[in-house]
């Protein structure tokens, strides 16, 4: 510190001394693009200490005259570049050239303004969550934040476990990229939400399909890309704190981040969030045991310069989520009773306690990354990341077992990846990469419950090559290929009776290692070779007309749940059975997007068709009897399927202060082999909003939002089961969708300046304004209880 002060003093002295000296030197030179050395026109060069500036001409040349001798800093600004600061020492008239990074987006540091896209793909369907919407959902989850985008829905378990779905697909078909790390958080289960804190992201993009091959070849549904916000290039300290008061659940959340950027482009960023809610409420009753406690934090530091950068990051996530007490049931008769009663069987007074059934999940993520830029070539990245995910699920059990988890899994993943991007040429761009991943799953035997997911080691190796070519000024084409090798080596106990019932004794007898009592120890080892590819074109004109067409071939290896599940799932009162015979599923998806922006209005239309071969589905197939009664059996099987859908949106600026936005999503899913509807396909939904904005009323903004969700009329048939209690066959309405519903919401916001200290933003968000009673088809607790009643969220954001 004192050294720095000394230097500063010396500099000052020098410059004063310089003033006394000759002031007749000149500095001239060129400002050029780092990649192709093309001149940068209109760059501003500024010497703050002398308050003089110069602008580059058509040849990228500049000149400063009448400079005094001394040490200075020159700040170079260009509209398409990141501002850079260079030190110069003037002792005589001199010539100096500067290089600037011209392709801003190549630094992954584009400022996101409104609906401006930062494309991850050339021709795929992409959409970005607005910064406002991200802040509004600070007290919610990732799934809630991206749900406002067209074509995005979610599969919920209550209101706190929100599993994102894109174009009707969820789970392992969706990749979540958290700051460049592919999340490995047991995404295979219906009641497993992504283990990420929405507050840790600076921006979120959703790619609706498998066109972003650099992230993975198996994103049949799509990719959610969470990225850090851009770091400015100056010595600074800034941050923000978001406080949320949430009425439904009688709790709130706080999230804070602080970034320090040092003079030499080293940076340090810390972030933390905490959320606590008690029992939530439906319009007519308390949803007993639906609270949540969530803690997340991250720290990252590193250095980012034009030529190279290094970064280390560690993040931690912990969530303890209580699951609706009434949704824990014993057998099929309990389920029939719940479906028929229309009200949860257990309604208790409000509490903050998180009781059984509940989940406790933790996720550790560590990452080291490095990049180096080669002049005239491109950028090389290398990254190592480590993830450890622990999931404990507690059921309602007898006696002291109640304090012991019924499911306790620990998933550890190491990944090493590298890629090189050639972006120096003007007309084309190439990217090639390699990835290796090693994963170990350990189910803790202390649960005293047979393992639902077995011990396994998984090795993955992949490589990709993608390219983009500028065909004509407004036309870009792209293509890419990818290969992935997946090997899974599991050790699993099967009940002998199950092994035989599945017919494995005929087909897989060589997998048996040992017979222990009535169980068989087996060692299934499977290898999958997956190929994926994409191609498409992009046309954009004058920033008013956009056309994108994309074709993507994606192949996904079955997840451990699809292969190995075997056991009773209490929260669903069903026996779930995987199948060792399941092979990779293949998707062929075609998508088209047409967007037009006029002066006061605009629209976009995005139709798509996804043809799925060997699509893996989980659906009711029969009934098994145990001493506890009858249970429906849900089995995984493969079929050919088709998803057809269209998303459309429009906006209109009726008046400088008034704007309206409209959105509709429609998707149809069919099992082509059985000519039936697919399960859990989102119903048609319409979203309309009317916004009022007035800048000189403290940026006051108010919006009224209407969400209309129609009834899903296409669903697989219900099943007939024998009810021991009623001593007869009964129809189990397990697939019947609930009625259509309409919810109104209200958002309001105003901003206040805190002088030189920062900015204060206050907002009020009301969900389900009219306290409407409804049930949602894509909520797994719809059999037991209504959806959430009115919720008022008051938010205070302080930027400093």
């Amino acid at each position, binding site marked *: 510190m004192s050294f720095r002060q000394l230097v500063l003093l010396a500099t000052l002295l020098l410059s004063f001394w310089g003033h006394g000296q000759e002031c007749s030197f000149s500095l001239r030179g060129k400002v050029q693009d780092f990649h192709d050395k093309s001149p940068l026109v209109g760059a501003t060069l500024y010497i703050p200490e002398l308050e003089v500036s110069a602008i580059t001409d058509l040849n990228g040349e500049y000149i400063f005259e009448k400079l005094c001798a001394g040490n200075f800093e020159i700040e170079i600004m260009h509209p398409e570049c990141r501002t850079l600061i260079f030190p110069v020492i003037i002792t005589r008239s001199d010539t100096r050239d500067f290089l600037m990074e011209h392709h801003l987006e190549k630094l992954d540091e584009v400022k996101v303004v409104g609906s401006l896209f930062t494309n991850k793909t050339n021709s795929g369907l992409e959409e970005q969550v607005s910064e406002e919407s991200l802040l509004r959902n600070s007290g919610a989850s990732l799934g809630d934040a991206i749900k406002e985008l067209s074509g995005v829905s979610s599969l919920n378990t209550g209101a706190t476990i929100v599993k994102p779905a894109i174009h009707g697909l969820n789970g392992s078909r969706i990749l979540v990229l958290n700051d460049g790390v592919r999340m490995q958080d047991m995404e295979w289960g219906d009641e497993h939400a992504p283990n990420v804190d929405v507050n840790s992201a600076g921006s979120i993009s959703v790619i609706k399909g498998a066109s972003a091959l650099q992230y993975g070849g198996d994103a049949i549904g799509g990719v959610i890309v969470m990225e850090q916000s851009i770091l400015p290039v100056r010595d600074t300290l800034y941050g923000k704190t978001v406080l949320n008061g949430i009425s439904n659940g009688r709790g709130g959340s706080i999230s804070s981040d602080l970034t320090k950027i040092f003079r030499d482009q080293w940076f340090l960023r810390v972030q933390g969030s905490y959320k606590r809610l008690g029992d939530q409420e439906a319009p007519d009753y308390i949803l007993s045991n639906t609270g949540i406690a969530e803690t997340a934090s991250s720290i990252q530091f590193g250095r980012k310069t034009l030529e190279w950068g290094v970064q280390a990051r560690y993040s931690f996530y912990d969530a303890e989520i209580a699951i609706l007490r009434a949704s*824990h*049931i*014993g057998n099929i*008769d*309990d389920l029939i009773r719940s479906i028929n009663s229309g009200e949860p*069987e*257990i309604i208790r007074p409000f509490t903050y306690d998180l009781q059984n059934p509940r989940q406790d999940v933790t996720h550790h993520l560590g990452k080291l990354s490095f990049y*180096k830029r*080669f002049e005239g070539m491109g950028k*090389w990245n*290398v990254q*190592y990341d480590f993830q450890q995910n622990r999931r404990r699920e507690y059921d*309602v*059990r*007898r*006696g002291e*077992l109640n304090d012991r988890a019924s499911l306790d899994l620990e998933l550890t993943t*190491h990944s*090493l990846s*590298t890629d090189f991007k050639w972006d120096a040429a003007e007309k084309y761009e190439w990217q090639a990469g*390699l990835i*290796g991943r*090693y994963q170990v799953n350990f189910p803790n*035997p202390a*649960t*005293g*419950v*047979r*393992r639902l997911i*077995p011990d396994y*080691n998984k*090795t993955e*190796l992949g490589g990709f090559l993608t390219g983009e070519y500028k065909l004509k000024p407004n036309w870009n084409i792209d293509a890419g290929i990818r290969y992935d090798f997946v090997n899974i*080596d599991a*050790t699993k*106990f099967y*009940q002998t*009776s*199950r092994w035989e*019932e599945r017919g494995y004794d005929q087909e897989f007898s060589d997998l048996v*290692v*040992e017979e*222990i*009592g*009535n*169980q068989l*120890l087996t060692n299934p080892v499977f290898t999958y070779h997956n190929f994926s590819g994409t191609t498409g074109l992009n046309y954009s004109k004058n920033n008013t007309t956009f056309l994108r067409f994309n074709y993507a071939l994606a192949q996904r290896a079955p997840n451990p749940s699809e292969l190995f599940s075997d*056991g*009773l799932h209490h929260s669903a009162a069903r*026996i779930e059975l995987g199948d060792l015979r399941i092979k990779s599923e293949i998707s062929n998806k075609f998508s088209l997007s047409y967007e037009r922006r006029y002066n006061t209005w605009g629209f976009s239309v995005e139709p798509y068709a996804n043809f799925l071969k060997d699509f893996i589905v989980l659906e009711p197939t029969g009934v*098994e*009897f*145990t*001493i*506890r*009664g009858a*249970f429906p059996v849900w089995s995984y099987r493969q079929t050919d399927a088709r998803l057809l859908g269209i998303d459309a949106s429009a906006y209109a600026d009726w008046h400088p202060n008034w704007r309206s936005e409209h959105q509709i999503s429609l998707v149809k899913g069919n099992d082509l082999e059985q000519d039936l509807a697919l399960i859990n396909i989102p119903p048609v939904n319409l979203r309309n909003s009317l916004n009022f904005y007035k800048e000189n009323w403290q940026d006051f903004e108010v919006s009224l939002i209407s969400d209309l969700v129609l009834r899903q009329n296409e669903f697989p048939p219900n099943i007939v089961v024998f009810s*021991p*209690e009623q*001593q007869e066959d009964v129809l189990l309405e397990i697939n019947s969708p609930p009625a259509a519903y309409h919810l109104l919401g209200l958002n309001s916001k105003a901003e206040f300046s805190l002088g030189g200290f920062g900015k204060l933003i206050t907002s009020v968000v009301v969900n389900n304004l009219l306290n409407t009673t409804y049930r949602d088809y894509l909520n797994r607790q719809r059999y037991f209880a209504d959806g959430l009643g009115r919720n008022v969220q008051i938010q205070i954001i302080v930027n400093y």
Partner: protein
Amino acid sequence: MKSSKYFSIFFLGLLTFSSCSDDDPAPEPINEEEIITTFTATLVPDGGGTTITLQTRDLDGDGPNPPEVTVSGDFVPNSVYNGSLVLLNETETPSENITNEVEAEDEEHQFFYTIGGGLNASTEYANFDDDGNPLGTAFTFSTGAASSGTLGFTLRHEPTKPNTDLADAGGETDIAVTFSVSIQ
């Protein structure tokens, strides 16, 4: 070239990393600790006669095999039987008696008896929890005239107590078994 050095370091890393050996010991088998495999109702006639045993046994628990149901004989008309219930987990050796656990947590459990299909009989609770509400691991079974039908037993965990019958008891079903019996 400098970049080739970086690449070679990377591949070296990849090799070391993928050559991790996996000689983990085999996982230990898990025997379900809370599963109830065997339900036995023993009905002893008041004043002497043949004891009737009703049993259902499902050794593979949640596995695909259905429970084996046995009824030792027919009931005698117009008699009173003293019934007792025993629950076992036979996947463990020696088998674990779960009746004790149920009786220890008597306020959180209750048995229900269901007579169906025209069986001319009635049941009554013979033991109660600490609050005086029925528990039902002991009961009396009174037969009427000759007939046949079903006798069902349901164990609910965390039911609403007191209650009138299964319909308003709530809770989760731990056992639901039904026997076809006759009175002759």
